[in-house]
């Protein structure tokens, strides 16, 4: 199974998810470091992500948009707050308007990624914290592939058919 555990804290509006992959830390790091590889997995097929700017250094910013089934573009930004290649990444994220400027009232989320060598592969831990309802709601809207039930079914199918 890819995802091995998840911990929710409704009171702190945070989620920590732990997944294991059958590849080395350096390889999994590339999936975060290289925007072209990041685009392959960040958005679902129905809301693919395109990173327009990607200044991968502490304090650097990234801007991206996700294109919905009807052509709607939803824009967001990241700001890298800490980068410890090849196993630690921290960033802030939020939404942007059509010109790519941050929408402050939507709030700032935080994400911390750590990669660990397990001997057999890589353990990835992603800790996310939200600030506002709109932010979380929209994140969900942009990231969700299908209705909940269908999505869960798909994941089960993917996981069942996949040696990890």
């Amino acid at each position, binding site marked *: 199974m890819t995802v091995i555990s998840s911990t929710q804290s409704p*009171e702190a*509006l945070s989620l920590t998810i732990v997944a294991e992959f*059958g590849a080395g830390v350096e390889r999994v790091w590339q999936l975060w470091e290289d925007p072209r590889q990041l685009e392959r997995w960040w958005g679902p097929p129905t809301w693919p992500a395109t990173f327009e700017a990607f200044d991968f250094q502490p304090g650097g910013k990234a801007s991206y948009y996700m294109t919905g089934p009807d052509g709607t573009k939803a824009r967001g930004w990241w700001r890298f707050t800490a980068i410890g290649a090849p196993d630690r990444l921290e960033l802030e994220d939020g939404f942007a308007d059509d010109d790519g400027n941050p929408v402050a009232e939507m709030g700032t989320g935080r994400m911390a990624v750590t990669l660990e060598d397990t001997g057999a592969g890589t353990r990835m831990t992603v800790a996310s914290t939200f600030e*506002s309802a709109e932010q979380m709601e929209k994140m*969900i809207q942009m990231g969700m592939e299908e209705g909940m039930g269908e*999505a869960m079914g798909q994941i089960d199918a993917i996981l069942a058919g996949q040696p990890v």
Partner: protein
Amino acid sequence: MVVDELRETELDRLFQAFADATRRDIVRRVSDGGLSVSGLAGHYAMSFAAVQKHVAVLDRAGLVTKERRGREQLVRANRDGLDRARQLLDEYEAIWRQRAGRIADILLEDEEKP
């Protein structure tokens, strides 16, 4: 997925309520049973009125209920409000499960390449 406006307002209140550490602590303290506002106030270095304001924000967000008991008001956690927050986290968790699945796909393609 269309975001229902009414629901969004409701959720806004919910998350504003949770944005404050004191309010999160209040919810935690009243989740095992009721506590009076004065009983709560004893736990914080702030005035009774300030604690009362925090309770009012939580009440509007649907996270706690207030019940009059003689001269006191008993504050209790509202499970429904907490369940909604959990529901949103469930949805977000599903997104990450999908992402992890796509990462696994990409890594699998690596192996298949000659």
